[in-house]
């Protein structure tokens, strides 16, 4: 489903270039979940952005669901993000001017995959039943993150890319949200690649990989 070969990325800071990813290889099969661990600044988020087509690699290839992300045009990347991918961020990225229900439906509506039964199920499972008419800023951060999760899953994407989705939550909420999240991803038949600092969060997923010095290593 996802195959990364020889991927390199560096950034220019002042006059020097700093390498973040160096000839990195990575594979991920369908309906699996992988935790991406690593120190701050190790390039975890960069790798996620490259997979989502939000950034350009210096060299290397990214193949996802038969598409060459590294060579795709912006319109093709947009179509992929809309229908086959989902992104969940620490900052939630909800549309503040739309209601909770509209936010949940948004991406599914964009790719015309609205499913009322599944929508009700997600809302119920995430405990958002009496919050749907509210606006995001009227919710707590934990609730906002649940809205972001519901939005990411309603259209049943092939791959969910999550960047520290519980980073804004306290420990007990994190565990509760993460449990629900991993369960719902499986229920949707999606794969999950999640960046996290937390070993306990990583334990919810099938595999753990560690990014260090621009390369990935499998971790127990």
């Amino acid at each position, binding site marked *: 489903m996802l195959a990364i070969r020889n991927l390199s990325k560096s950034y220019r800071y002042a006059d020097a270039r700093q390498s973040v990813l160096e000839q990195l290889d990575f594979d991920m099969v369908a309906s699996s979940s992988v935790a991406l661990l690593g120190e701050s600044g190790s390039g975890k988020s960069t790798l996620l952005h490259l997979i989502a087509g939000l950034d350009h690699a210096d060299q290397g290839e990214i193949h996802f669901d038969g598409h060459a992300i590294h060579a795709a045009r912006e319109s093709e990347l947009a179509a992929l993000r*809309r229908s086959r991918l989902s992104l969940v961020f620490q900052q939630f990225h909800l549309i503040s001017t739309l209601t909770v229900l509209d936010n949940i439906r948004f991406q599914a509506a964009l790719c015309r995959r609205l499913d009322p039964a599944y929508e009700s199920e997600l809302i119920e499972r995430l405990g958002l039943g009496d919050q749907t008419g509210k606006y995001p800023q009227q919710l707590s951060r934990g609730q906002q993150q649940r809205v972001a999760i519901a939005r990411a899953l309603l259209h049943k994407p092939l791959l969910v890319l999550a960047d520290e989705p519980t980073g804004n939550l306290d420990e007990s909420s994190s565990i509760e949200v993460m449990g629900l999240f991993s369960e719902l991803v499986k229920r949707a038949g999606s794969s999950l690649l999640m960046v996290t600092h937390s070993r306990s969060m990583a334990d919810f997923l099938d595999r753990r990989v560690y990014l260090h010095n621009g390369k990935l290593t499998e971790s127990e």
Partner: protein
Amino acid sequence: MNSGFCWVMKALLSHYWRHPWQTLFLTIGLVAGVALWSAVQIINQHARDSYQEAQNLLGAQAQYWIRNRRDQGIETSVYVELRRAGFRQVFPLVELEVSTAAGVSIKIIATDLLALPDDAFASDEVNEDFADSWLKFVQPPYRAWVPRVLARELDLAAGEQLELRDGRKLPPALIQAREQQGRRVLVDIAAALELSASERLSYLAVGRITANEFIRLQKILPGHLELIENQQHLDLRELTQSLHSHLSAMSLLSFAVGLFIVFNAVRFSLWYRRGTLLNLRLMGCDTRVLLLAILMETLLWSVLGTVLGFGAGILLAQALLPGLGASLQSLYDAVVGTDLGLSPWTLLQAWGISLLGLAWALAWPLYRQLPRRGLQAARSDLLLIDESLARRRLALAGALLAVLALLAYAWIETVTQGFVVLGLLLFAAAWVLPILLAGALRLLAWLLPGRLLLARWMVSDGWSQLPALRSAMMALLLALTANLGVGSLVDSFRSAFVGWLEVRQSADIYLRAPQISHAQLLGLADSSQWLAASHHRIGITTRWRERPTQLRGIDPGAPDSLQLPLSSWQGESAAAALQSWREQPAKVLINEQVHFLAGVEIGEQISLQGDNGIQTYEVVGVFYDYGNPYFQFYLPARELASHWRQHYSRGIALWLNPDNPQAFAQAEASLKTLGAQPGDWIAQAQLRKLSVAIFERTFAITAAMNLLTMIVAAIALLASLLAILQERLPQFAQWRALGLRQSEQLLLVATPLLIFCAIVWLLSIPLGAVLSWILIHKLNVISFGWSMPLLWEFTPALQLALVIGLICGLTLLLVAVQWRRQMPQALAQLGETV
């Protein structure tokens, strides 16, 4: 349109639903800009249509006029003979000016409805009611058709009879909405002749006539009458063009201020929606779909702005039209109806201009935001870099515009070119402003000692406010500059005009009664008791260099001739030039219009077509002639009479004996003895009052637009500050948590605002002076051919400073109220846990 697109539109537009203040300010900016622009367009278009429609009322149906060469009217017998000779297209006209019991001067026009050409009234008016009122109109006691606006002013109801100063009454009033009638009262010719106590018609009008009939008419016309082609319509267009250009340019300036507000509101809406745009892209929204959505949003706003703005423009035009219409009638004798006729073309133009404005303000920045890849679009540090870059780019563009304005200044030849230069200059100043404000912040930070930490903090907070206040400050600068510049122009004009009136209207009584000759007046047995001096002016109207021109024969020894104010002259002094003009018949004085508009210089020889061929005169002086749209030449009366035998009386000015307290009453009694009617003469005070009233009315539209522009700029300021408050509320909450009091926070917001306002105000003073200078010394001269000294006073600038202070005070008060309302929630969110 698929559902995905609808969802994108919903996400973009939901911003306005959730931020009603921003929506309101964007709407107000757009509506105000379009309203100010379209109001003037509607007025201009309506005035031009009225000039055309004036052709359809009575005499204006005429292809030719028949006038008395000496302006002494036409005997009714001549009219009867012409009709008997088969000229059915000839119809009579009487024009009168009377005073009401309340002292209001009104114009009366009269004709014989039975003699009018068939198409003089539009067919849709021929209904039963019209036929009924038509019959009443021509039969005693007759009817006076009073235009609605005049009836309102005179508080006259239908059926009432308007009482005149001499106690007589007009026929019962029938309130009319006829456009072409303007502010004139229409009565039957028999009623008018009764009123004037004369058997003479003012002139005859000749409808459509064949070439053969024209030759026959010329042959049978008595020698004292002349057949003149009717070119009133052409003349009006030419004479009023400059005024309309002026108004158009002012409306564009107002639109520009409105546009800054739109731009301001749009920047805020963009700032707030950068997250939404990022989300849309993260969720795979195609750039093309986003572009289409932006285009749709622009279209929606343009339609909303046009519909509301045009509606408001109509209301504004209706409010401004009566005053302007009265001025046009007084200055140019142009009849402008008071019921607006709207053209779809004006509406389309309004839509086009709002669409262009929005494309610049909304679509372009949104479009620029799109190509940024993913998360970059939301990075605030990039936006800050953008802000600094934008300031530098604006300053560069502003400097470029200033250079262009300087280069173009030397080439100004038309009103349009003049306003383009003004526009360049104003936009140059507005665009350079942000970098000046940034420079002022740097300078203040450098000047303030390090120990004044709080003061340094307050000044440095300006950096956070500058991006949000930038456009509002530009709008304020434009509004202040326009206010000071145009205000100074009007003050200069008022001062010059009033001073000029004192000299030009120095006589105590002005008599316009063609039936009374100067000799008759001087021959009165008692005239020596009350009359100190008199001046009988004669003249003719002709065309010179393709423009309506008045030749005036004046008495060189009359008191007002001796004091004639000259703007330039030949020789050592104005007195010497006047002396040479008095003594040598081949000398002429010209008005400023001839000097500036036709380019005639002192010492130049000019040729005028007289009865016996070309007459050549040397120009020895140029006199001020405010308010006159015509070219005018002053010749000694004897000289004019000898070469233009068809001259007619232009009235007699009378100076009363200052030692006789009864002089005025005696003069009035004497004039009545000679057969003059009240309304044939006017006292100096009343004439000056009328002249000043015309002046004030003409500039009422300017004052109204200045006021509206200031209001629009004030709204921009308010919108910006409220947006700052909204954006920075979490930050303010953090400071509050650190122990900062509300008063200190308010001071923190107020200090940079006041610094910016002070700089804008200071800058607007020299800019306003430059604007005024160009308006007076370039545009006024090009437009009207009038020059005047620039009068610059500091008081209006101080008054504006007070207005700015009030606006800031009110805005800060609203900010404080908003804080009180929203701060508790912001504080609660500071410590929020899941």
